[in-house]
């Protein structure tokens, strides 16, 4: 067809109109194309309304639907194997999607890369991956948010609300993204309560409700009075905490309505920002951005509104740090920083801003975390 650089909206329509399969397109897509719009595909690894990871993405998809000239198609519960390759291909071939949002981390290598190479004129935006120049195809993008900023703020709120100074963290697997959240939460809590500790339980998988409930109960049994988590659906952890009269901090999306008494705040994604960036770029015929990242300041992540139990003092402490983050003046990971075995992981005087590549490979738990990787 045509090369990527000249891939403008007009060319796209021409190409699409030339495709013999156009007659097979559903009427809605045909209308969108005729109106000069574009089709956008979303692929989720789990159920769209899981109160967590997938819901956060689906909310952004719902927001995109409202943009003029944008038609959204979705597929949920697509496993990270040939199934997702075929779903991406089908969106590109059958639905003429201009961009496919592949929202699960496990989609990237090899699936997104393989399909992108096969369809150089299509675009795939992947959530979480590390696109790098020269190594990965130009029609692939990766986007992600620095949600550890929200975890740090949650840690502050938790640290100033907790009576025991013990926090529980239910996590799926000890991978860098998860460790970074655990560490940021703990650092936030210890910035206001130096004796605070976080106990971690890894469940081994992203969605295991019974195991998550067992983990939450074990943590509460150990005297933890604030629970948070990094699993796909935080519903079980938040509800368990609420039932046993403990506090909770949410993740991915807001779980506030699940725990009206104990929900303190939470770290939420706001994927509308990056998703709109990609769609606008394609609509306006601008170059496709390959590496899109941001934190609170850029509007990629946001905090759940504070719960009723959060004190004025805690709100203020968190808001102060948030204001610095919004100005880009706050660094979470800076030396001297020790891990929980006493080893220095960041020497004094050194600090890693959010973009630092060192943070992407985090393989330690900071001092104050009880557990090992």
């Amino acid at each position, binding site marked *: 067809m045509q090369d990527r650089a000249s891939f403008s909206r007009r060319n796209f329509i021409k190409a699409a109109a030339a495709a013999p399969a156009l007659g*097979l397109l*559903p009427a809605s897509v045909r209308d969108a194309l005729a109106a000069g719009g574009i089709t956008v*595909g979303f692929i989720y690894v789990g*159920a769209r309304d899981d109160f967590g990871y997938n819901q956060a993405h689906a909310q952004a998809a719902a927001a995109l639907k409202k943009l003029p000239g944008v038609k959204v*198609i*979705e*597929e*949920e*519960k*697509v*496993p*990270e*194997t*040939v*199934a997702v390759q*075929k*779903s991406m*291909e*089908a*969106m590109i*071939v*059958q*639905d003429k999607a201009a961009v496919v949002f592949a929202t699960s*981390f*496990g989609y*990237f*290598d*090899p699936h997104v890369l393989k399909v992108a190479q096969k369809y150089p004129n299509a675009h795939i935006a992947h959530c*979480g991956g*590390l696109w790098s120049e020269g190594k990965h195809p130009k029609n692939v993008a990766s986007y992600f948010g620095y949600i550890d900023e929200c975890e740090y703020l949650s840690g502050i709120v938790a640290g100033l609300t907790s009576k025991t100074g013990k926090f529980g963290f239910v996590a799926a*697997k*000890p*991978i*860098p*993204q998860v460790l970074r959240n655990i560490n940021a939460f703990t650092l936030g809590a210890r910035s206001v309560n130096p004796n605070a500790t976080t106990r971690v339980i890894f469940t*081994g*998988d992203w969605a295991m409700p019974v195991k998550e409930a067992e983990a939450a109960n074990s943590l509460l049994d150990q005297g933890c009075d604030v629970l948070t988590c990094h699993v796909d659906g935080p519903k079980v952890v938040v509800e368990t905490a609420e039932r046993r009269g403990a506090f909770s901090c949410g993740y991915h999306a807001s779980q506030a309505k699940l725990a009206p008494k104990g929900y303190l705040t939470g770290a939420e994604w706001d994927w509308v920002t990056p998703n709109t960036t990609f769609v606008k770029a394609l609509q306006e015929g601008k170059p496709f951005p390959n590496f899109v990242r941001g934190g609170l300041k850029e509007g990629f992540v946001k905090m759940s509104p504070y719960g009723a139990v959060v004190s004025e003092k805690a709100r203020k402490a968190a808001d102060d740090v948030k204001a610095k983050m919004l100005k880009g003046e706050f660094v979470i990971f800076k030396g001297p920083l020790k891990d929980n075995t006493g080893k220095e992981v960041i020497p004094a005087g050194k600090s890693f801003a959010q973009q630092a590549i060192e943070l*992407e*490979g985090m393989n330690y738990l900071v001092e104050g975390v009880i557990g090992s990787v």
Partner: protein
Amino acid sequence: MSAAPARPRPLIDALLPLAAIVIALMLFSLFVALEGQAPQEVLETIFAGAFGDAFGWQNTLLRAAPLILTGLAVALPARAGLVIIGGEGALAFGALGAAAAAVPLAGAPNLVLWLAMALSGMLAGGVLIGFSGALRQWRGVNETISSLLLSYIAVALMNHFVEGPLRDPASLNKPSTLPLAPEAMLGNLPGLDVHVGLAVGLVCAVLAWVFLRFTIWGFTVRVVGGNPRAAAMAGLAVTPWVIGLCAVGGAMAGLAGMLEVAAVHGSCNASLLVGYGHAGILIAFIARQNPLAVIPAAILIGGIGAAGSLLQRRLDMPDATVLVLQGILFVVLIAMETLRGRAWRIPQLSAPRLAKATPAPEEAA
């Protein structure tokens, strides 16, 4: 579809699955209509997604490829009278074994690498399910429960090794073993967008069928599976046969795991466990433990998977729609067995029992 030639009226029997599909589609249409969708549109979309064009067909076949092998993993031990439900674990073990074998062989000629991976994967899967057969023969542990337990243990071990000793340090957020070099990946079949795993599965299914149907060993298996006591009295070595068929079944699932590593993922990681092993149980029973019939059964499930994708995108129907379709379809398929060879069966020529593991209670009496 069914390939038991001893039947007097194979045509009618062969038509049964087709009739079942028609009835199931009617029931499914009713369900869809009750849910407020237009049945015709839904059925057309299903057909278009699975078999409507070249893309649909290849989508279907690609999904079917591992299912043929996991179906054989259940069907073969069943011929010796065992109900094995641990295919998922054997697949996990096979993938782990294959990935582990690839580590010291990085840079070796592709053929050597693939053979070593395949052997290692088959060995790993074979040992797991073979162990289940051995526990049954030597310790009297029921193989259905032991294979299920072993499956959970195998998956845990796979995860442990992938995130521990065998982890590629560069696999940050998706713990995996060391990846194969891109040129060491198994490619597609010529002219198709389907990897060679499909051909491997087809060859295995045909080989198993020929073995069971035309060799003296196949006859032995029938005797062992039909009546182990009589077989033992006739001087047949029942235990080696039982353990051997379990091991071969496990090896099939292990091979499926190896293919997932070498043709799809490039490494062993948790993403390759998506229930192919569980689907194999269903496939084997639909195929009535006949290795050849495993092929269309696997294609049917692959096709429904492909159709589910299009249903979600075109009609905004939930992913579970195809689960409902599968459920209805397989319930009808299995219930229709009651018509097989019924009125038109010549009594003296009763067909050999294919799956002695599973006679209806009335027949056992």
